[in-house]
């Protein structure tokens, strides 16, 4: 067969295409937009002279922030890796009673934004303030990022590896350690890196626990001096930390070649009976679910019923809900439009430039919301004042932050549309626009819908960028909640939190169905 020739990169280059590669131009433009925050941080920190930068960076306060941030990232990612892997193992591989229910509950904490979780714990006991409490609460909020991918890998794992190890003379524990755990490593590390990126970006949960990190300090500096050099330089350090994690992730992705070797379908394995360990496993899972889900929902319920400041201002609640839904829908449309050319180019074309374009859209979204917001505020105020304090600027920030959610879904969908289908349609007399309308779009509609749903639900719980960028008078569920909770009006905050949880629940469900963290980052 000469199919080998036509699938070679060179053959792809010789494919007949329009003279102006519209898709590539649009993809490069989108990539440039997503790189604005990174560019801003580089330019602005370079602009602050070395003396000023030194004075602002080499302070006891910055040392404390660094210690807090790095300590939190190390402790929480480790805790998430252990808790998430153990929980996934028990739910997927053992015969623990009620496995489908536990599997759904494993992902359920994703429906509770970390800052709502934090609010619940703080209003229950002030003892959670500080490092230990921050590690506890962020672990409870973020362990699903490890548990879900590990569960997915465990589900798809062919028992043949473990059986081969046993046949080669290893005991059951050694077989798992040497033949199974290495296969889980990419999922565990990938999930842990994702947790790390979220921790670097976390603002609401840590501010409420009075645990200062770079993100909360940038917010405070912004409140005090707007986008001055203090905020910018702290942002530069934070970006540096993010890049360290990103490089780790890239190296991981490069090495993860653990696909099944050989042909034939993987067999399913029967779950391992737990025997006398059953009560222990049940108790562990129950404790996890009570702490991660029971506490925030219970406390929220209590505040809704009996808080002294509890009120149900229907007009404000309705307005905030409508604003939130409107922003979320707008952002879903915008990210879809931006993701289309990038995903198209990434799937159908090859080359170094294309890879850079695709990567850059992921880097932009890996930066904390506070950095993206700070960058857009400064760029808008200095360069394009008309868009400052507009909904458009807020939507752009959302798009930069959440683009990969649509991209990943769209990319996967487009990869299912082989170029041969285009050829077939063209040879049947259909023009390129007709091919798009009659073949490509119908086939990617599902992926587009899933990606949009994820963006929609991310916007609903976005706090940091919204606080900085929402035009005056634009109140979302998250900012209304934050205003009340920050003023210790816990009861008044409760209805907004409850609405956010309700709107987020479908996202958590979607994540259990897909089970892969790529939907999150």
């Amino acid at each position: 067969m000469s199919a080998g020739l036509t699938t070679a990169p060179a053959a792809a280059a010789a494919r007949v295409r329009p003279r102006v590669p519209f898709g590539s131009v649009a993809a490069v433009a989108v990539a440039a937009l997503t790189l604005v925050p990174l560019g801003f941080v580089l330019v602005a920190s370079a602009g602050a002279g070395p003396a000023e930068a030194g004075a602002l960076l080499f302070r006891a306060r910055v040392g404390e922030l660094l210690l807090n941030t790095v300590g939190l990232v190390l402790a929480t990612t480790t805790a998430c890796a252990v808790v998430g892997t153990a929980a996934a193992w028990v739910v997927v591989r053992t015969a623990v009673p009620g496995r489908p229910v536990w599997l759904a509950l494993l992902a359920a904490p994703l429906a509770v934004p970390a800052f709502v979780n934090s609010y619940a714990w703080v209003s229950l006991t002030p003892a959670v303030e500080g490092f230990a409490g921050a590690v506890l609460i962020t672990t409870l909020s973020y362990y699903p990022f490890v548990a879900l991918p590990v569960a997915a890998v465990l589900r798809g794992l062919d028992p043949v590896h473990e059986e081969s190890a046993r046949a080669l003379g290893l005991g059951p524990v050694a077989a798992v350690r040497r033949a199974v755990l290495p296969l889980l490593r990419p999922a565990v590390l990938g999930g842990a890196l994702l947790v790390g990126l979220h921790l670097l970006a976390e603002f609401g949960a840590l501010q409420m626990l009075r645990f200062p990190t770079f993100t909360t300090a940038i917010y405070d500096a912004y409140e005090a001096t707007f986008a001055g050099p203090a905020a910018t330089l702290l942002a530069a350090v934070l970006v540096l930390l993010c890049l360290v994690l990103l490089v780790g992730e890239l190296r991981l992705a490069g090495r993860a070649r653990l696909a099944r070797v050989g042909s034939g379908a993987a067999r399913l394995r029967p779950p391992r009976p737990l025997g006398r360990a059953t009560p222990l496993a049940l108790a562990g899972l129950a404790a996890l679910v009570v702490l991660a889900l029971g506490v925030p929902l219970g406390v929220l319920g209590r505040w809704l019923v009996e808080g002294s400041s509890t009120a149900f201002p229907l007009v404000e609640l309705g307005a905030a809900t409508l604003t939130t839904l409107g922003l979320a829908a707008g952002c879903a449309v915008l990210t879809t439009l931006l993701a289309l050319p990038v995903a198209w180019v990434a799937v159908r074309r090859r080359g170094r430039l294309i890879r850079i374009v695709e990567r850059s859209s992921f880097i932009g979204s890996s930066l904390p919301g506070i950095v993206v917001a700070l960058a857009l505020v400064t760029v808008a105020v200095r360069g394009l004042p008309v868009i400052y304090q507009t909904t458009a600027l807020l939507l752009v920030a959302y798009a930069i932050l959440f683009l990969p959610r649509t991209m990943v879904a769209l990319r996967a969908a487009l990869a299912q549309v082989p170029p041969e289908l285009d050829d077939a349609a063209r040879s049947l007399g259909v023009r390129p626009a007709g091919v798009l309308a009659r073949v490509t779009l119908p086939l990617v509609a599902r992926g587009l819908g899933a990606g949009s749903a994820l963006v929609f639900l991310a916007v609903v719980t976005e706090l940091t960028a919204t606080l900085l960028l929402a035009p005056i008078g634009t109140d979302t569920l998250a900012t209304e909640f934050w205003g009340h909770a920050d003023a210790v009006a816990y009861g008044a905050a409760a209805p907004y939190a409850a609405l956010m949880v309700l709107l987020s629940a479908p996202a958590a469900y979607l994540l259990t169905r897909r089970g892969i963290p790529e939907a999150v980052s």
Partner: protein
Amino acid sequence: MSGSGVVGGVGGPTGLSVAAVSASFGAVRVLHDVHLEVPPGSLTAVLGPSGCGKTTLLRIIAGFLRPDTGSVALDGHPVLGLPPERRRIGYVSQEGSLFPHLSVADNVGFGLPRRLRRTRRRVGELLELVGLGPDLADRAPHQLSGGQQQRVALARALAPEPRVVLLDEPFAALDASLRETTRHGVVSALATAGTTALLVTHDQAEALSVAGQVAVMREGRVVQVAPPAELYRRPADAAVAGFVGDAVLLPATVRAGRAESALGPLPVAGRPEDGPATVLVRPEQLVLRPATDGGATGEPIARVVATTFYGHDATVRLRLHHEADSNGHALPTVLARTPGHAAPAVGSDVRVEVDGNVTTVDGH
């Protein structure tokens, strides 16, 4: 739809005509000065090994690739300036490439004008043409077998009444058992429709059995275009001889239309020049009889070195030695094909007789 290839281009050449086409991917030349004429209403096979450029040629004709130089004409009209959708050239790929979101009926009707798409009659006719029942019309592509998918792909390609249908290894992905019946169904549908067709394949048996004309490609060049029987009997060179079937190539000396070789004096087809030459004998031309039978003196004797049994027939590897030749010259091994039930035992001696003419070939 029948005969649409004959109607156009009054007075000019009809059918598909490829002239002086060259193409390259980057610095790599994949097609060198390719010429090919496909007569209207016929099925021509392009036969070649992997990477010989045959799929590239097909994709250039379809309009998915541009050649560096050369021309492609349909019924005398050049088509290289046209986008694929305006060439009226049907295309069936190796996987069929059915649209997964559409039913069988909607796939078949995809290239029809909107008004014809809605009436099911045309779709039903096309399904019947490729040997599929109307009950399949509402199925999704993934509910069909591979062979059914290829038949639907052909029905879809024939629907807009193309001037030529191009088939890119359409049977290669099918199981051996499905391949035969699907091939038969597709070829008879093409014949019924009277459509000019170009089939690309690396399977010599497929090319020889279905096509009226076979073009052999090698390293980007068309090395021979001939009807199947002529291609098999009189290949252009030794490589083609070996590519289209098993070949016994023997050094020989030609004198007055007879070749002196290790198999004795053999009658040569055509009018060969006198002198040293390489002759081609097909294994099935070798007739084996037990050596104890006795025979004409000088008839070569061979020892059976190995046999491979296929059921209907068997191949026998022989080492030649002459009864008279006792000075122990190394003589060539040759391959013979016998009916399966008549394969001689390994180690036994057989008398070898050659049935029919042999051919001289170049470049051994």
